């Protein structure tokens, strides 16, 4: 308790960049920081530098809509995220930092029989893998969320939902800071405002990186750069089947909380939760065009507002406070690309589309294990970059595209 009052630095001030590290992690977001944390904690590898071109958590980690869940469609995806949720549940205690993880439950609405089939499939896969997930009808939805408009005389009547009780929202920035503090305490160096401008190679191996603060020698580079993945991989000469799109979100002014469950409608491309501060946090699907511009669009506000009011007409007079965008790295099968590439010593965590933040702890543990042992952990083997050469794709389209 006394820690509450004592002012303690979260992390050391940025120091000089040394000329060599065992491991260089590009990207100070949730994946990069988690990987560094577990490298140090689980494997004792502490000669690690995190190079971040802006401030920590400045990309997707600080822009997502903070939803954590495991109710994926493919067994590969569901198992992976099950582990992630499990880690998230214990992460606050592990990092000794309250991440405000609110496991309030997650409803994915079905507005058509096709939607119900998808929900059923996900529930069936989840149950076989021990994930708490089931299809519920309108009556149970009304019990879980009495404020939602469940009348049938609307454009998209609610026919049922996939209910996932462990699904929740978390304070995303706290995850970033908690990992940063944990990594820093283990001796990992965090270098914000340090951009990687080149990746040095020799004989098919990584030998170092060029940065805006000078060169660094290393034989292990982990790129965890989300929307900028292809640009960083280009530096390493590794082509990635990734396109970069924007995803948008907005919050409303705070109002007294009444929505205690996360509501997602894939049909209407909208997901809605209410934060512990009382703001409604609303997101949409990825924009179909590719861009690196972080400018938001007005049409996003219009269609998201329209869909929100379809479900919650009582929010008609509630005001939008702020909209923002984030960059998403989308893979062809809506599953991540994780692990080794054709360049020795260059690992990637990419292809996260709209669902990367949910995976931070499990990405961190598995990538750290891969770095430490050189062996790809079983859990992430299906997500290897190689699958695009062997055509072994993992289709998460049904569960990932807009289902936060």
């Amino acid at each position, binding site marked *: 308790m006394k820690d509450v009052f004592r002012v*303690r630095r979260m992390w050391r001030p940025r120091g000089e960049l040394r000329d060599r590290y065992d491991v260089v992690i590009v990207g100070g977001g949730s994946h990069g920081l988690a990987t560094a944390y577990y490298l140090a904690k689980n494997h004792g590898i502490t000669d690690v530098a995190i190079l971040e071109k802006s401030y920590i958590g400045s990309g997707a980690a600080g822009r997502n809509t903070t939803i954590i869940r495991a109710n994926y469609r493919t067994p590969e995806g569901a198992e992976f995220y099950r582990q992630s949720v499990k880690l998230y549940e214990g992460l606050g205690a592990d990092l000794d930092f*309250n991440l405000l993880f609110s496991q309030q439950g997650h409803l994915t609405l079905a507005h058509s029989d096709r939607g119900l089939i998808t929900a059923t499939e996900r529930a069936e896969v989840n149950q076989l893998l021990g994930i708490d997930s089931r299809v519920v009808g309108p009556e149970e939805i009304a019990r879980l969320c009495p404020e939602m408009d469940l009348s049938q005389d609307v454009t998209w009547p609610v026919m049922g939902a996939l209910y996932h009780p462990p699904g929740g929202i978390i304070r995303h920035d706290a995850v970033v800071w908690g990992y940063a503090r944990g990594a820093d305490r283990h001796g990992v160096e965090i270098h*914000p405002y340090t951009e990687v401008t080149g990746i040095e190679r020799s004989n098919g191996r990584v030998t170092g990186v060029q940065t805006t603060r000078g060169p660094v020698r290393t034989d292990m580079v982990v790129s965890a750069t989300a929307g900028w993945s292809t640009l960083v991989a280009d530096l390493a000469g590794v082509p990635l089947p990734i396109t970069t799109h924007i995803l948008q979100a907005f919050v409303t002014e705070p109002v007294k909380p009444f929505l205690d469950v996360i509501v997602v409608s894939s049909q209407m491309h909208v997901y809605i939760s209410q934060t512990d501060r009382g703001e409604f946090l609303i997101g949409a699907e990825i924009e179909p065009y590719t861009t690196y511009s972080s400018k938001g669009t007005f049409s996003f506000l219009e269609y*998201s507002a329209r869909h929100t009011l379809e479900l919650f007409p009582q*929010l*008609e007079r509630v005001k939008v406070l702020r909209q923002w965008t984030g960059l998403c790295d989308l893979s062809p099968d809506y599953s991540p690309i994780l692990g080794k590439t054709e360049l020795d010593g260059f690992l990637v965590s990419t292809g996260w589309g709209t669902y990367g933040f949910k995976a931070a702890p499990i990405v961190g543990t598995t990538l750290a294990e891969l770095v430490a042992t050189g062996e790809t952990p079983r859990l992430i083997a299906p997500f290897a970059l190689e699958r695009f050469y062997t*055509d072994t794709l993992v289709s998460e389209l049904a569960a990932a595209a807009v289902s936060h």
Partner: protein
Amino acid sequence: MRLPPQPDERIDREAAIPFTFHGSRVTGFAGDTIASALFGEGQRVYSRSFKYHRARGLLCCSGNCPNCMMRVDGVPNVRTCVTPLHEGAKVEAQNFWGSLDHDLLTLTDKVGGPFTPVGFYYRTMIRPRRAWPLYERFLRSVAGLGKVEKHGGRTRRYDVEHRRADVLVVGASEAGVESAREAAGREGRVVLVDNGLDPLPDLEGVEAVRGTAIGVYEGGLVPVDAGTVLHRYRAGRVVVAAGAIEQPLLFPGNDLVGVVLPEAVRRLVGRWSLRPGARAVVVSADQRGLETVSLLEQAGTEVAEAVDLRTTRVREIAARGRGGRVASVELDGKKLDCDLLVMSGGRQPAYALLAHAGASVEYDPGRGIFLTSAIPQGVDAVGAAAGDGVAAAAPSATYNGASGKGKCFVCICEDVTDKDVKRAIAEGFDSIELAKRYTTVTMGPCQGKLCHLPSIRLYARENETDEASIGTTTARPPWQPVELGLLAGRPHEPAQRTSIHHRHKELGAKMMWTGTWRRPHSYGDPSGEAKNVHDALGVIDVSTLGKLVVRGPDAAAFLERLYPNRFGDMKTGRIRYGVLGSDAGRIMDDGTIARLAEEDYYVTTTSTGAGAVLEWFEWWNAVWGLDVGIANVTGALAAVNVAGPHARELMSRLTDLDVSNDAFTYLDAKHAHVAGVPSLVLRIGFVGELGYEIHFPSPYGEHVWNSILERGADLGALPFGLEPQRILRLEKMHILVGQDTDSESNVFEASMPWIAKMDKDDFVGKWSLERVQERGFREQLVGFEMANGVVPPEGGQIVVDGRPGGRVTSSRWSQHLGKAIGMGWVPPELAEDGAEIAIKVDGSVERAHVRLRPFFDPDGEHLRT
């Protein structure tokens, strides 16, 4: 109590307006805002603050700060200082337990300061984990500001207007008006948008609009919030004349009721003839604050002292309160009693709209404010928004670092104090972006209008650096908060109905959604309807099918390249089933393709895939540049399928075609008049019985439908819906794209290898399909029969070694076959006729057997005869 009439007052003392405040009857005048009327009635406390529940009163009187936010007629968070009063308004204050004057949660203020430092919640309630949900429940019970009617519905009608302007001026400030006047008559259509309380200026050649610009988006899009109308302006040139925003000073007690910004004095006295207080102290870092002195004197307020911080160095300012209201101020220990403290920390140009447009925002150390540069083309800044006339502040004087007793607020929306910010810095949140997220400064209802500049000044001071190197956070739209209802517009979504829709309703159809279409699920008896197709004659409305005409010298070549099938060798008047693949060899859609003439094909698609297929066709047509035209005739044509043993007899009655099996064979396409309507008749059979699909102009939908039912009545003609159709097609193992296939399915693994003509030169996806052939199958789409007649759920799992090994995509009970049947994906080693599979049904595992050929009429004799 009002002052005697003031020279420029805006109230009409003859027009009293009654309204209620917490149920009590009160009155204001025409020309009042809700806040000014309440002030006239003696109200000084307007709200309770977000975290500490401190009493808050009018501060900016300009619609920027959160202090006057109230619930008006059930609408939360209304900025009452800029909301004109209307008769009968029901006004209530927000965010208190008990009453506004005696808020039980002020406890958080008394004990909260030392016990709840910034970010305290990150460090507490970590263990035991069980405790956190309880604590969270408490947090949620006190969070938020205004209340929403939990079960309320939509109450207002909102409209959107699309407008164009050659020049759009935002803000009727002096500079804005001047810009509009200059542009008038020279630059086409000139529009001036203003959200103030004064009447709009009447300028020749300028259209003046009351409303708030929400943002400046790509392509000169400036949406304007005009209450219940959203004006979506496309502007050739945007002139931002949004003025400047008065900034507070940082000192202990700077949030007390009675501590105001200069504009509050101007408006209270000048506009509404209200005396802001009895005894005032003015502390100002610019001229604007000092200018209030004469106004105050004019209103009969005694000015105890006016301090110009530019010339007088004051080391310590501290306001002391009683009951949340300012009672005195200490200037370097000199105590002055007062009930009004006018503070001015200078003005910050309102640059947000410029930042939205892409301008950079940088600190100008000489003037102590943020200014914009690199304003993009097509956008201009004028007046105070551009920094003109914004008198140099004395930034060093706006915060002296003295902490003293009492809270010094940097951000009044979120109740963030100077100590919180200092603590954040000490903890290592040393970038403004990190600090913003940690302390939540600038994240409240004012969105930084009153806290961005002071927080950055404080930051610079604490970090012992200059403001310029601290940088700034990004300004994001909207410029002022905007209602969801306005953004949403009127509540309608596109819905499609066929031209026979009303007949279905009359026939008692249960309707369902498929994509945007409403279609009959059934007419009450799905099994019976399916049986009638087998036994007699069924008719189904298939108008929802996508329908494309592909015509031109290269039409055959175009389709050959798009589909894995062959179409060039088709004879005129023949039909082929086609499966459209993506460039990755994945199944996108399916349908029939009829060759109507040498250069003329008629392509049908799935009901939900029509749009995507059209887009796909047009995309490739643009890439290849073939001589072919594509027309979407989905809506223009209705389509009806008649199927069953008596279908031929019916067709012979409705047309003068020779419908004998020799003259009109399976997979023939013929033009004919059906019930007098020019039609295209396709002999195909999705449902497995002899069938004809009749395509004809939509307006004749009901006529053709009625004719079929009338002329076929003695043949047993009855309508059937989508549900019986699904049973029938499943009996035939005909796939539904998107249900039986997913985004990774290909024709080989979907058990339709005959579709792909791998000896063709090339087609979209060929390379990928060759890879599938090379690598071998990983899964396969098969049919199955349940051993015990249990119908498994669609989406159910086929269990292999206790793990998900495959999935059920379709399943039904077939009355005709007396079996529970289905389709699903299984591992290749199980894709053998008769192989046993296990399917999870409601927690137990049911046995089933794989079937590779259609359950019904595997050789298609019913279709061909």
